C-alpha cells in the first residue's frame, strides 16, 4: 500500500503515448478522447465564455479586463467517464503552485458525490481540455470552478436518472448508457453549508511526485532524439544586430546555427555544447544599442511622460487640512524558480509544444500566428510548472523553441537561463502614484484623489466611505517591457493608499486603526478583516507599548473580491540604519473557503513574496541594460528574512468564493512602512522601503 494513502490510485495519463494517437481536430474530437481516455461517456457543457479577458483588447492592467465579450464557447468536453468508471475532469487551467489542481479536483468530487482520489484531473492540454482562458487574475475560483461543478452536478443527475440515487455512486453505469451527453448550465450545485469535499484541506493530488522528483516540469520533458537550444540575446533592450560571423559556431561538432533576421539561435546535442556555441556567437556579434532611461531617474521619467499629463485633483480646496504626497513602486521580476522552458516538436505541419505557460490557448494562437499555420495544427501542453506569478503569459520561449526545432528537424528543448529570465521576460510595471486629500474639521476625510501612473487600476478605488473620492489611471512611456504580475497594481495602489491613510491619521491626531474604522461601516467586510487582524495581533496593547527601536503598523485593502488586513512589527538597527520584520498577522476573507489549507498557504507565501518587494526587490537598469539579473544581486526573500507569520481566515459561507492568489500580498508593504514610521518617525513612500540609500 502507498504510505500516503490518499495518493490517487488510477492509472496516470501518459502524454507521450497520447501524442502519437490523438487527432488534431478543431475543438474536441470524439475519436481523440476515446483514444486518450478509453471508451466511455463525455459530458459537455455550454457555458458563457470565461476567458474573454485575453481577447478583450489586451487590458493587461486588470480592474476591468475580464468583462469583454461574453459569447458562448463551442461545446467543450468537461468530463469523461471511462467504461471502467475512471473519471477524468478536463480544464484549460494550469497548476503552477497556486493550488488549482487540488481545488478543481475537490470541486468535481463535491458535485459528483465521490472522494477526491477517484477524480483524475487533466489540465492545460489544448487538444483535450476546454479553453478556460488564461490562469490569471484570481479567476480560477470564480470563473472555472463553477462550470466544473455544473458539469459534475449534471453528470450526477444523469446517473441518478439511469440507476436511481443508490450509494455508492457507480459512474460506470453511466458510461454504459451512451457516448455523449450535452448539458445546459442549470444543474443544482451543493450550497457551501452542505459541502463535504469543498471547504476541506485537500492536498495537491500529485504531491507524491513533487517530493520524489517524478513530477515532470516543462524543463524536464524529454522527447526521442531531442536536442538542446539556445538563443543569442542582444546586449540591451532595443539593440539591433549589425554584424555576426556564425562560422565558428557552425564548425562546432553537432551544432546547427539558425539565423532568421535579428533572431540567431543554435541547436546542439547537449546543453553544455549549446552554451559553448552561443559563447562563440557572442564573441562575433556586433550590436547597436540605443540610449534609454535609468532606474535612478525612473519615477521622474514616468511622471514626465504621463500621457495627457497628470490629472488635477477635482476637489482642490476642499476641507480644512490639506494633504499631498507621492508614492513609488519599482520594477520587479517574477523570477519563478523554473525559468521559461519549452520543448517543441514538429510532425510535418503539425506542431506540439510542452511549455510552462499560464496561457496555453493564447500560446497556441501565438504559435499559429508566428509560423503562419492553422490553429488546428498547434497543440500546447502545459505540464505543472515551476512558478508563474503572472509572468508566464506570453509565447516567446515556445516560439523560439519551435523555430529552432523547425531547422533542426528534431524536437528541441529550450530552457532560458536565470539571466535571460531576469532580462528578457517582462517586468511588473513600476508605478508613480500621487495622492491628494483633505480632512474636515472633525478629522474625517473630506476629499480623496488617487492617481496611478503606469501600473494600473486594480484596487485603485478607495474601499473607505469617503464623500468625495476619485481615482484616475494614466499610461506613461515605460522604459522596460512590462506585463502582468501577481497582485500587480493592487500592490502599488494599496501601498500608496494605506501609507496615505496612516499619514492622514497622524494629521487628524487619531490612532491608525480608529481612523480607518471611522471610514468604514460595521457591516463592511474590510471592517471585519481589520478587527480580526488587530485583535489577533493585540494592536491596542502593542501601539500603546513604547519599545525603543520597535514599531508596529497596519494596513487593509481589497481586490478581486477578497479582503485583507495585516499588522506588522519591525525592529530597527539604528547603527546599521536597517530594519527587520519580526511579526506579521494577517486576516483574510475570500468568501466561502474552498480549501482552508491552500488558502492559508497562499497567504503565508503571499506575505513573504510581498516582503521581497517591500524589503529590497527592484530592477536596476541603464541604457536598456539590466544590472542585477541574478539571484545574488536581486536577492529575493530567503529563510533568514522570515518573520513570525500568523494567518487568520474568515469563512463567509454566505458569500461566493473569490480567488485568493493575489490579494494576500497587498497589505504587507504598507503595514511595514507604517511600522517603520511608528518606530522612527521616518515616512517611507517608495517600494522597496529603504531607511538609507544603501540599505
Amino acid at each position, binding site marked *: *500500500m*502507498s*504510505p*500516503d494513502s490518499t495518493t490517487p490510485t488510477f492509472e496516470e495519463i501518459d502524454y507521450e503515448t497520447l501524442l502519437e494517437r490523438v487527432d488534431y481536430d478543431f475543438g474536441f474530437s470524439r475519436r481523440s478522447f476515446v483514444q486518450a481516455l478509453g471508451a466511455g461517456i463525455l459530458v459537455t457543457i455550454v457555458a458563457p465564455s470565461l476567458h474573454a479577458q485575453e481577447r478583450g483588447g489586451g487590458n493587461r492592467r486588470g480592474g476591468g479586463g475580464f468583462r469583454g465579450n461574453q459569447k458562448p464557447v463551442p461545446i467543450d468536453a468537461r468530463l469523461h467517464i471511462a467504461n471502467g468508471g475512471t473519471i477524468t475532469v478536463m480544464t484549460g487551467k494550469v497548476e503552477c*503552485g*497556486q*493550488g488549482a489542481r487540488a481545488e478543481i479536483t475537490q470541486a468535481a468530487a463535491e458535485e459528483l458525490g465521490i472522494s477526491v482520489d477517484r477524480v483524475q484531473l487533466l489540465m492545460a492540454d489544448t487538444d483535450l481540455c476546454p479553453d478556460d482562458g488564461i490562469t490569471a487574475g484570481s479567476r480560477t475560483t470564480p470563473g472555472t470552478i463553477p462550470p466544473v461543478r455544473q458539469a459534475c452536478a449534471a453528470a450526477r443527475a444523469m446517473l441518478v436518472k439511469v440507476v436511481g440515487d443508490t450509494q455508492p455512486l457507480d459512474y460506470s453505469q453511466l458510461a454504459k448508457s451512451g457516448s455523449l451527453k450535452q448539458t445546459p448550465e442549470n444543474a443544482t450545485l451543493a450550497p457551501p453549508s452542505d459541502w463535504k469535499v469543498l471547504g476541506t484541506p485537500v*492536498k*495537491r493530488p500529485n*504531491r*507524491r511526485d*513533487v*517530493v*520524489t*522528483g*517524478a*513530477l*515532470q*516540469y516543462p*524543463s*524536464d520533458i*524529454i522527447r526521442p532524439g531531442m536536442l*538542446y537550444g539556445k538563443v543569442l540575446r542582444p546586449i540591451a533592450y532595443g539593440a539591433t544586430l549589425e554584424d555576426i560571423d556564425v562560422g565558428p559556431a557552425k564548425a562546432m561538432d553537432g551544432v546547427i546555427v539558425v539565423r532568421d533576421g535579428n533572431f540567431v539561435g543554435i541547436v546542439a546535442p*547537449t*546543453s*553544455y555544447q549549446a552554451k559553448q556555441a552561443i559563447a562563440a556567437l557572442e564573441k562575433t556579434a556586433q550590436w547597436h544599442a540605443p540610449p534609454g532611461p535609468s532606474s535612478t531617474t525612473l519615477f521622474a521619467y514616468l511622471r514626465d511622460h504621463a500621457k495627457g499629463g497628470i490629472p488635477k485633483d477635482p476637489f482642490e480646496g476642499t476641507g480644512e487640512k490639506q494633504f499631498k504626497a507621492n508614492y513609488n513602486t519599482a520594477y520587479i521580476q517574477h*523570477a*519563478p*524558480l*523554473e*525559468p521559461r522552458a519549452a520543448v517543441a516538436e514538429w510532425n510535418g505541419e503539425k506542431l506540439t509544444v510542452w511549455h510552462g505557460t499560464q496561457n496555453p490557448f493564447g500560446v497556441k494562437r501565438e504559435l499559429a500566428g508566428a509560423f503562419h499555420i492553422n490553429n488546428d495544427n498547434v497543440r500546447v501542453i502545459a505540464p*505543472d*510548472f*515551476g*512558478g508563474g*506569478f503572472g509572468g508566464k503569459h506570453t509565447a516567446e520561449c515556445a516560439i523560439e523553441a519551435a523555430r529552432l526545432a523547425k531547422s533542426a528537424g528534431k524536437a528541441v528543448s529550450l*530552457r532560458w*537561463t*536565470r539571466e535571460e529570465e531576469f532580462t528578457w521576460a517582462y517586468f511588473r510595471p513600476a508605478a508613480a502614484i500621487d495622492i491628494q486629500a483633505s480632512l474636515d474639521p472633525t478629522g474625517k476625510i473630506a476629499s480623496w484623489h488617487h492617481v496611478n501612473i503606469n501600473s494600473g487600476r486594480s484596487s485603485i478605488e478607495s474601499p473607505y466611505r469617503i464623500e468625495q473620492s476619485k481615482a484616475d489611471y494614466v499610461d506613461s512611456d515605460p522604459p522596460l517591457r512590462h506585463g502582468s504580475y501577481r497582485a500587480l497594481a493592487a500592490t502599488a495602489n494599496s501601498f500608496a493608499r494605506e501609507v496615505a491613510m496612516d499619514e492622514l491619521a497622524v494629521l487628524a491626531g487619531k490612532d491608525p486603526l480608529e481612523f480607518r474604522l471611522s471610514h468604514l461601516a460595521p457591516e463592511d467586510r474590510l471592517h471585519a478583516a481589520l478587527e480580526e487582524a488587530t485583535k489577533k495581533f493585540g494592536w491596542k496593547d502593542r501601539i500603546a507599548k513604547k519599545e525603543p527601536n520597535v514599531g508596529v503598523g497596519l494596513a487593509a485593502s481589497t481586490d478581486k473580491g477578497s479582503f485583507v488586513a495585516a499588522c506588522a512589527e519591525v525592529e530597527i538597527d539604528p547603527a546599521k540604519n536597517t530594519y527587520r520584520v519580526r511579526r506579521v498577522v494577517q486576516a483574510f476573507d475570500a468568501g466561502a473557503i474552498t480549501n482552508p*489549507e*491552500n488558502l492559508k*498557504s497562499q497567504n*503565508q*507565501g*503571499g*506575505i*513573504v*513574496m510581498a*516582503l*521581497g518587494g517591500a524589503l529590497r526587490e527592484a530592477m536596476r537598469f541603464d541604457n536598456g541594460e539590466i544590472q542585477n539579473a*541574478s*539571484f*545574488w544581486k536581486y536577492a*529575493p*526573500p*530567503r*529563510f*533568514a528574512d*522570515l518573520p513570525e*507569520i500568523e494567518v487568520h481566515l474568515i469563512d463567509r459561507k454566505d458569500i461566493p468564493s473569490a480567488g485568493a492568489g493575489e490579494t494576500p500580498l497587498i497589505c504587507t508593504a504598507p503595514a511595514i512602512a507604517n511600522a517603520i514610521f511608528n518606530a522612527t518617525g521616518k515616512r517611507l513612500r517608495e517600494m522597496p522601503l529603504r531607511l538609507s540609500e544603501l540599505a
Partner: protein
Amino acid sequence: MDAQLTINGKPTNISSDAKRPLLDVLREDLHLTGTKYGCGESACGACTVLVDGSPMFSCQTKLAEVDGKSITTIEGIAHGDQLHPVQQAFCDQAAYQCGYCTPGMILSTIALLEKTPNPTRDDIIKGMNPHLCRCCTYPRIVAAVEQAAKSAKAVSP
C-alpha cells in the same frame, strides 16, 4: 573523460567532457530530472544533490570533481513505495507550492538532520538559507524540517 560514479547506489560510467556540470549529466544523460536548474550560480539550491552525503550544487560541480564519488539524487531516497521520512514530512506539511525547489530542499534537510538531529529553529533557518523558494513556502518548509526531525527521533533507538 571516463568517470566512475555511484548514483543512487548504482555504479555508473560516464564518458563525457570533464568540465560538464554534474547537473547536465544527471538530467540529460541519465534522465534523472528531479534535480533542477534554478540559477547556475549557487544562489538557489534547486540543483542540490548529496555527494558522499554532503549537499552540493550540481550546477557548479564539474563531472571531473565527482569521479569516484557517490551521488544521491531525489530519485534515490525513497525505499520503493515507502517515502523517506523527510519526503513524508514535506507531503504532510504541504511544504511546497510549485514544488520546483522541493527536491533540493529535501536533500539539504536530510544532510542537515544528519549533522544536527535536534535542530533549533535558528539551525533550520541557517541550514536551509542557501535555498530559495520563490513561492515563499518557507514557514511550511520549516515545519516540515521540524516534523522530519521528530519522526527521525521516533524511529531511532
